[in-house]
């Protein structure tokens, strides 16, 4: 990230932070993390215009071991929604980012029993055109135990055994470059529990401690169908 982008990102974050001061609960839960610009697999900046509506993109944020979904809601709007996490407290999900305010991001770890996308397989996906688990299109489904979430309302739980919403990640949009920058998220306490639950697997994949490291200045975002060799179809 060059100096100019960095300053711009910081400015965006600062403005956003200022806005939240009127909402103490939100300010308490949505944690700022070092910004990470989303890039394609070849390292080129990901443009908002290139984010597909047919499936989610996966990127790691704020730590290398935390997978997030980037979802283009298409014609639907993202509604900031007041939600609660039993571990990380109350928060309001961010508004959509991008020129059409229809890009949202959330942590791609099911809040029920922690299924998440790995290079081998994903039980959780954004079912743009619908799923056997639900009649409505455009929902996130976790096939492991049938939890359903709506990315347009902060990934709030719609059906199934999940106790609460998928946790949100906040995006900033750089109008000049049409780029996207992840700037914060909710979930620090949850992440600690997730790391504990998968520690052996995460050490195998990222090396000791590697999964806990910040992603750095860029985060690669690629479609789930390329990120995971197999994806559930429920």
């Amino acid at each position, binding site marked *: 990230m060059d100096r100019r982008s960095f300053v711009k990102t910081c400015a965006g974050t600062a403005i956003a932070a200022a806005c939240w001061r009127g909402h103490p609960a939100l300010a308490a839960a949505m944690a700022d993390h070092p910004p990470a610009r989303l890039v394609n697999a070849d390292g080129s900046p990901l443009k908002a215009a290139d984010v597909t509506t047919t499936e989610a993109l996966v990127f790691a944020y704020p730590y290398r071991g935390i997978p997030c979904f980037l979802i283009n809601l298409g014609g639907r709007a993202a509604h900031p929604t007041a939600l609660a996490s039993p571990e990380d407290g109350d928060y309001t999900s961010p508004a959509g980012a991008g020129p059409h305010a229809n890009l949202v991001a959330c942590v791609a770890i099911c809040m029920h*029993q922690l*299924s998440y996308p790995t290079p081998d397989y994903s039980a959780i996906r954004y079912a743009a055109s619908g799923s056997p*688990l639900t009649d409505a299109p455009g929902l996130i489904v976790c096939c492991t*135990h049938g939890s359903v979430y709506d990315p347009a309302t902060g990934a709030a739980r719609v059906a199934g055994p999940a106790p609460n919403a998928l946790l949100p990640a906040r995006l900033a949009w750089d109008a000049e470059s049409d780029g996207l920058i992840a700037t914060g998220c909710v979930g620090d306490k949850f992440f600690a529990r997730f790391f504990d639950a998968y520690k052996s697997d995460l050490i195998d994949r990222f090396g000791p401690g590697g999964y806990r490291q910040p992603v750095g200045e860029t985060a690669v975002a690629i479609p789930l169908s390329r990120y995971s060799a197999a994806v*559930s179809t429920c």
Partner: protein
Amino acid sequence: MTHEIDRRHFLKMSSTVLAAAPAVLATGPAALAAGAAQPASDKQGAPFVSTHRMLDLPKARGPRLVIIGGGTSGLTIAKYAKKAYPKFDVVLVEKRCMYSSCFASNLWYPGIIDLEFLADHSFLDAAHNSDYIYVNATCIGLDRASRTVATNEGDIKYDFLVIAPGISYDYDKIGVHDIDTKVALRQTYPGGFICPTEHVTIHRKVRQFEGGVFIQTVPSGNYRCLPAPYERACLIASVIKHNKLKGKVVVLDANPEITIKAPGFHAAFDELYKGIIEWHPTSAVTGVDVAQRTVHTEFDSYKFDDAAIYPNIRAATLIEELGLMAPPTKSNQKEANIDIRFYNLIGDEHVYVTGDSRPMPYSKSGNTSNSEGHYVAKVLAARAQGKDITWTSPQTLCYSMVDAFPKQAIWVDTYYGYDATKDAITGFKDTKVDNTRSEANGATYLEWAHGLYRDMFKA
């Protein structure tokens, strides 16, 4: 293709599960006769078996919740009761010192998973991660008047007690009454639905099967894991097919139709295992001649080279031993006499029975016990604080692997209804089913099991 379950399948499934329910006691006279031979009141008021010393435990730091049984139900309740009400001082009493799950165990036989998949989960870690105490002991007695439960390692005082001991086999219901045959069947042709050591034996049988006839029986009643015997038949058949053996699996089914996911299993039988699986409906076992390796049904006899004889089941004998059995009008499987919404013993809000010793017509499966455990944890937290709680249904989400090469599965996902006017569980609700086998479902099956392990053993 997945679809909402149609009415015909719903009725078929409902009638199977509900067959064990008191309201539809199809086997009423027989059950009553069995009950008469061993009255429910046999053990009521039996002298309290005690070690006359207290088990060595730290002083309780809050209301002591003792849980007997570290299976899916007990492990889930131990963790989530503590989460729901952190003041609980939770003690989990489990007679095994090594965990191995019954759910997903069929997948080990054809080598889809290894034993580590089932068993690499520590009671110690579960207790540490969720801040409760694990005690390796066996429950031997209960005195409800003094709120004392006895174990072979000493007695424990409780404020709340959950008993989740699982099931026992009932060989009498398959016409095996003599003790020699019962012991021979238990040891040589185990059902494979209670103890990990049974899984090891069946694994050895499948690995060493060189051809001939393998008999898998399917009992009547609300037996543990309705699809499991059919799933096992498919997986053994897939090994026979894969290894090009001259062999077949003969499924002797006490039921007139496959009890759940019938279209998916029929498709597998017909399309994958024609000539390898021989399915005989309405063929309840009426006796077994172990020496002659012959299973008798009402009309026929079947010779076998090897077998897994799954007899009928009942609540764990501990329920009877402790005098907690429901009358035969309420349970024909010797299950516990509990409130069907809140799980406490009738007349005692300090003692609860959960998991497969419950009398409700729920599918006796891992997912049912896990989701039920989440709810019972909330019941206990509410009771400890003098609050009320609304009943919620358990979820029965159940995968079956019908092929091992490649691994392909089908599934059903259902909830249950409650009829307040009858105070009865009414049957399946919001049911979804996918009877079309696929590798995507196969992969999800493994993740489903991982999810349960995480839910029970991790923080």
